[in-house]
């Protein structure tokens, strides 16, 4: 009896030891798996804003897959994002003043602050150390440390003789660790120089025109151009010689013509430049305007399907992809930059809100709000490669933006 029991015990012990060895192997294997999963590049990653649920979807553009979903970012209507220079972190600017730093590899929120009551966008400094946010309420720009999101500077957009405060739009980064932005209610363009981050210097330029609504900066960081909603033309600042002030360009564009209603504010995102021309959406007209880069004169008006919202240049500059405001927001048109003619039209579905090219432009991702999908197209053949399920997608931002001035 006793012998038998001992045998059984021994047997059990053996089994236990075997099991332990196996378990050890399993743990070793799973550790390897975890380590393998963690070692990953970030150059093909991106985020898609899900604006109704206040979450973002993390995607990769090589296999077109969803890597994860991160909730808890607040009101993401009109949200945008910039990336840290190591392309590990995304900084998401929410409408409700939320500034959220997201770790794309660990897929979690690393820092989050509510920095204002109502915000419209942001930028990351040339050295990657500062994050600036443009606010409607309280009107101005607030600057934070990109590592910790601790406040660094507060620039209220107080203008005129009294204490009027303007809403701020068109915030971009510029060389020299500067931020440039426009005061919607004051018609001014301000340049905040953070080369000495503890003592920023602000240059205020007046006479931008009526209601600058958005702005862009050339990829070399030299020219800042603000679009005007309240009048015709654009406001131009040469950042190599900012003391020369604001120059108005295309002042006669559309003079005396009846404007069509604008059901969505156009955007000036990036520099839709191809060869010698800059392409911008007209305001109140169903046209894309081509501007001559050398003398800033109007080169051509390209008739399009509706009120353009985004005019995005494919990275090689050969094609421009254009989406439209209501009631034409089911359509995307493609313009050839050399012939300045529409060469292709797509109907992805109702509520086409944003488009983003892969870093070298072989594909474009298009968010279609009402189908809850992001369609991926081959930019050469215009054929749809795939579609990804995303809840009410709006802005799409790929990490390649980290290394481009103004994005």
């Amino acid at each position, binding site marked *: 009896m006793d012998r038998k029991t001992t045998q059984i015990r021994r047997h059990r012990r053996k089994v236990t030891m075997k099991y332990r060895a196996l378990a050890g192997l399993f743990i070793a294997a799973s550790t390897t798996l975890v380590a393998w999963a963690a070692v990953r590049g970030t150059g093909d990653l991106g985020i898609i804003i899900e604006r109704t649920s206040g979450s973002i979807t993390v995607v990769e553009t090589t296999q077109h897959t969803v890597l994860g979903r991160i909730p808890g970012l607040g009101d993401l209507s009109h949200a945008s994002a910039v990336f840290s220079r190591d392309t590990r972190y995304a900084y998401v600017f929410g409408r409700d003043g939320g500034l959220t730093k997201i770790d794309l590899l660990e897929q979690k929120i690393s820092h989050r602050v509510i920095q204002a009551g109502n915000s419209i966008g942001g930028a990351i400094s040339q050295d990657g150390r500062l994050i600036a946010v443009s606010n409607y309420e309280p009107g101005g720009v607030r600057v934070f440390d990109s590592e910790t999101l601790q406040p660094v500077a507060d620039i209220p957009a107080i203008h005129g003789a009294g204490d009027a405060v303007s*809403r701020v739009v068109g915030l971009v980064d510029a060389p020299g660790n500067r931020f440039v932005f426009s005061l919607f209610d004051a018609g001014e363009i301000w340049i905040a120089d953070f080369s000495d981050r503890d003592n920023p210097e602000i240059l205020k330029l007046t006479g931008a025109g009526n209601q600058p609504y958005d702005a862009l900066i050339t990829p070399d960081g030299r020219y800042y151009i603000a679009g005007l909603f309240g009048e015709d033309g654009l406001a131009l600042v040469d950042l190599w010689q900012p003391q020369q002030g604001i120059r108005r360009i295309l002042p006669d564009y559309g003079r005396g013509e009846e404007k069509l209603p604008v059901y969505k504010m156009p955007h000036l995102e990036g520099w839709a430049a191809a060869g010698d021309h800059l392409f911008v959406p007209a305001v109140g007209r169903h046209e894309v305007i081509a501007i001559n880069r050398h003398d800033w004169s109007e080169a051509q008006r390209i008739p399009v399907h509706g009120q353009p919202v985004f005019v995005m240049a494919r990275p090689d500059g050969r094609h421009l992809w254009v989406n439209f405001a209501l009631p034409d927001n089911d359509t995307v048109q493609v313009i050839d930059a050399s012939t300045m003619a529409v060469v292709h039209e797509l109907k992805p579905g109702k509520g086409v809100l944003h488009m983003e090219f892969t870093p070298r432009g072989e594909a474009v991702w298009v968010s279609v709000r009402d189908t809850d999908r992001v369609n991926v197209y081959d930019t050469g053949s215009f054929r749809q490669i795939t579609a990804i399920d995303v809840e009410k997608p709006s802005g799409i931002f790929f990490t390649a933006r980290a290394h481009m001035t103004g994005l």
Partner: protein
Amino acid sequence: MLIACSAQAENGPELQRQQQLQQMVLHDCGACHGMSLKGGLGPALTPAMLEGKSDDLLVEVILGGRENTAMPPWNSLLNASEATWIVKQLKSGAIGAK
């Protein structure tokens, strides 16, 4: 038929259209007024903000727009009964931030 018509006039747009309008307010109006309707480039459209403003005035603003602002006339996309329905929804807080 007559009864159906008058019922519709009293209650505003049909259910399917109401859902479309609700989406439109959140997403398209929300582009400027904020998706939670707490304001952005355009003013907040919360019940507190709209209190004391007459329905007629608000319907007029929706359909006719406001000059020298970014508010466009929506009369090519909405009729009077739809604009009236939207005003009632906004005033009661049935659409927007909860």
